[in-house]
């Protein structure tokens, strides 16, 4: 502080220890449990988010293993039909709502601020609130499951099965409320991401220079804003039908069961791309580090992302071909479903061109990328097959569909995700994951994945329906099912290998340094793990590959406060510096708000009193959240510079 302020043209001195200490004081969270509860740092919350979502992945995986154990031989009596229904519903619900979407958003919430060169995510308290609500919603589902109240109606909970007449007890209500939780979480995360990307980019990072992962998260966030309300509305109708006797899905009183399917799939199909687009962003962002060249066809990639996002909202009816929709509609949705292969194909060819023209280095993340391309193409091809109505009618609700979407989702999202774990683990923890164990991890996963899901294509052709808890020996499905179950064991061993790798590497992994992969995006410009304020001096970006285009000298910004939390806002398109905005302090109120909403949603299943009680609690939390503390008053000086321009 005693040092004179830096001015333009000056080189930053080597010794910035005092400045770092000051920033640490301003941006750091308190030590101990209180600091842990109140933190609003996007990296702390992102880490928790990723860990929590990964634990849900493990739980969903255990459920998958239980199903495979039950199906490993005909007329197995390991798990009864009632439990089996709950388990497959839990597996689907967990993987879609508690793992895939949250973990992609969590990666975004961790890395987008780093990649765009800012200090924290926009609306950090909302971010903390989102995490706590996610934790409460996910735990609620599992507590209910252990109380034998786990949903048993499938992850898309079709009425009338899930409706009031045929879904006795509170099982389907558990599902509907879990969905409501996760929708709110997804929407608040999406808003944070959009605002962070539009307003908080580093100076010079114009919209045509942002990393493709950031593009993917931006596009995904917009999709979430338009898709999630559909399932939130639908699950609200379902809850109202079940709890207060409305008739949305009762045909005898003018309701309509297909209304549910339309509403659900209007969300459900974009959902697939909400999971898949961030994964493609991960691939496009990792690839340059392993091919030593910028990704091929940046504009084509970005346009592909955007066009996929639009098309994704125009093909939901292909999930409903078997419901007897008009032929013209069926043809239309066949056409759109096939058409979406075009932008996806553009992306695949761009990746191939990047690898072809680069100097590929097959480290573990790259292996996962190669595995992803191979598996996703298989899943994509079966996708085009089932876009055709006659074929779809043949395999509808069979194991062929199960095979298809596991190739798309495991191959298309989980493989890039594991690649991303290997790639960004050093940034998050400061240590490299072991390459040797990593190779085992990849090959076990790749072999296990094909062993588990490829036979399901045949099983589907042989007519094995999905969601049956057992089958007769005379069907002849036994051997293929056994093969599939052994494959599941191989996948399980691969995931255990990964966990071992994490534990071993956290203790004794090679120290990573700032930029172990010599990559080009901004998160590698800071230390590993990054400090609470991310960058001591906010970077100025020169080109698309920020770190490769800057030469041997980094240009930086000065002038944001070191006395209080402050973020630099830039213009949405060109990222020209526009204003400095004070940034919220840590707070316990987001947790209180999440608890209030949790009470509201969970007790709403049992009593309408939930509304006044939960509402009052939320009101208290809201007041605490928004009311300025003495700390706020202190840091937001009365001599702030106010600009009315554009008001």
């Amino acid at each position, binding site marked *: 502080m005693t040092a004179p302020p830096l001015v333009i043209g000056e080189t930053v001195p080597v010794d910035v220890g005092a400045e770092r200490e000051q920033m640490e004081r301003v941006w750091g969270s308190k030590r101990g449990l209180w600091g842990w509860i109140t933190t609003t740092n996007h990296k702390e919350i992102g880490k928790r988010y990723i860990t929590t979502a990964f634990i849900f992945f493990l739980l969903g995986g255990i459920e998958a293993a239980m199903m495979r154990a039950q199906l490993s031989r005909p007329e197995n009596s390991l798990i009864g039909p009632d439990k089996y229904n709950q388990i497959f519903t839990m597996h689907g619900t967990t993987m879609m709502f508690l793992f895939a979407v949250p973990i992609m958003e969590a990666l975004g919430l961790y890395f987008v601020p780093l990649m765009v060169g800012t200090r924290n995510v926009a609306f950090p308290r909302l971010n903390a609130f989102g995490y706590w609500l996610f934790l409460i919603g996910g735990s609620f589902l599992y507590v209910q499951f252990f109380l034998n109240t786990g949903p048993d109606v499938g992850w898309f909970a079709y009425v009338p099965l899930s409706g009031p007449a045929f879904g006795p007890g509170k099982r389907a209500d558990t599902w509907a409320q879990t969905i409501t939780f996760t929708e709110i979480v997804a929407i608040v995360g999406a808003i944070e991401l959009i605002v962070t990307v539009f307003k908080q980019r580093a100076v010079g990072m114009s919209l045509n220079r942002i990393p493709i992962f950031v593009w993917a998260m931006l596009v995904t966030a917009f999709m979430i804003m338009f898709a*999630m309300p559909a399932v939130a509305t639908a699950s609200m109708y379902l809850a109202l039908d079940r709890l207060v006797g409305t008739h949305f899905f009762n045909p005898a009183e003018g309701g309509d069961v297909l209304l549910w399917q339309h509403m659900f799939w209007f969300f459900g199909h974009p959902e697939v791309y909400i999971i898949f687009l961030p994964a493609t962003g991960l691939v496009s962002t990792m690839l340059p580090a392993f091919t030593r060249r910028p990704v091929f066809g940046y504009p084509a990639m970005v346009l592909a992302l955007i066009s996929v996002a639009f098309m994704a909202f125009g093909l939901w009816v292909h999930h409903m071909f078997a419901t007897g929709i008009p032929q013209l509609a069926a043809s239309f949705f066949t056409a759109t479903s096939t058409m979406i292969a075009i932008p996806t194909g553009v992306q695949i060819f761009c990746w191939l061109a990047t690898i072809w023209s680069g100097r590929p280095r097959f480290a573990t993340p790259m292996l996962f990328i190669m595995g992803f391309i191979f598996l996703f193409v298989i899943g994509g091809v079966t996708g085009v097959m089932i876009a055709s109505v006659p074929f779809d009618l043949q395999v509808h609700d069979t194991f062929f569909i199960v095979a298809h979407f596991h190739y798309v989702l495991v191959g298309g999202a989980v493989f890039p995700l594991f690649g991303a774990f290997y790639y960004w683990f050093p940034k998050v923890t400061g240590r490299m994951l072991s390459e040797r164990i990593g190779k085992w991890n990849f090959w076990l996963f790749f072999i296990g994945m094909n062993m588990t899901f490829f036979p399901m294509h045949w099983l589907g052709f042989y007519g094995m329906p999905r969601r049956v808890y057992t089958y007769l020996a005379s069907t002849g499905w036994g051997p293929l099912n056994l093969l599939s179950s052994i494959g599941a064991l191989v996948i399980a061993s691969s995931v255990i290998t990964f966990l071992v790798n994490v534990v071993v590497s956290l203790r004794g992994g090679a120290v990573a340094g700032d930029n172990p992969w010599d990559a080009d995006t901004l998160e590698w410009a800071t230390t590993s793990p990054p400090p609470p304020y991310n960058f001591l001096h906010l970077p100025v970006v020169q080109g698309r590959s920020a770190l490769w285009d800057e030469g041997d000298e980094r240009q930086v910004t000065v002038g944001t406060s070191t006395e209080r939390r402050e973020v630099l806002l830039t213009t949405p398109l060109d990222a020209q510096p526009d204003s400095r905005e004070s940034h919220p302090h840590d707070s316990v109120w987001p947790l209180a708000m999440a608890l209030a909403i949790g009470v509201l949603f969970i007790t709403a299943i049992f009593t309408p009193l939930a509304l006044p009680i939960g509402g009052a609690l939320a009101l208290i939390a809201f007041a605490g959240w928004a009311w300025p503390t003495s700390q706020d008053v202190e840091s937001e000086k009365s001599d702030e510079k106010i600009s009315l321009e554009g008001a």
Partner: protein
Amino acid sequence: MTKRERVTVDVTELPTIVFGSRGLLWWGTWGFAVAEGMTLFLSIATYFYLRRNFQTYPPLGYPQPDWFAPTIGMAIFLATCIPAYMLKKSAVRLDKDAATRWLVILSVCALVLCGVRTIDFYALRVLWMTSAYGSIQWVLLGFHGSLLVIEAAEVIGTAVLFIKGPVLPRHFPDACDIGNYWYFLVLSWLPIWFIVYIGPRIW
């Protein structure tokens, strides 16, 4: 370990309080408005989807909803745009007294509108559990009503803050965004009022 850094941009002179789309909260407010607007849009889509299941609308045996009281309510709704507009203007002038005054007036409006919404429910002349017709009518009103109640809480809370609490410079752009959200609330009520109370009479 670290690269040499050279200062090329100095942002010391930039403003710290900005209005409109230059600030973060404006984006956040509209973000929520878009997500909520999408929910309302889908509820309206549901209305038209379910409407196909009835030969006449309202279905046989149900009375037409009362249009008079809700239309008066609609007029009140539109009129509250004036205090919202005045709030925005006084906030941009950084006039704390005027902003406080308009926040209080807007709070009163919000409470009045909560009362109006209760009358709106009676004007439906149908219960949610009698048929899908009643269900969607109630949900359209109820969903918009919940937005209204939440916004009423926010307006009243902000009014209390302006009267009692430490008013910081950043609260002026915040007050502006309350005005913006209020516009969304009023505008989104227009189509719902129309299809619920007026539509069945004219088509």
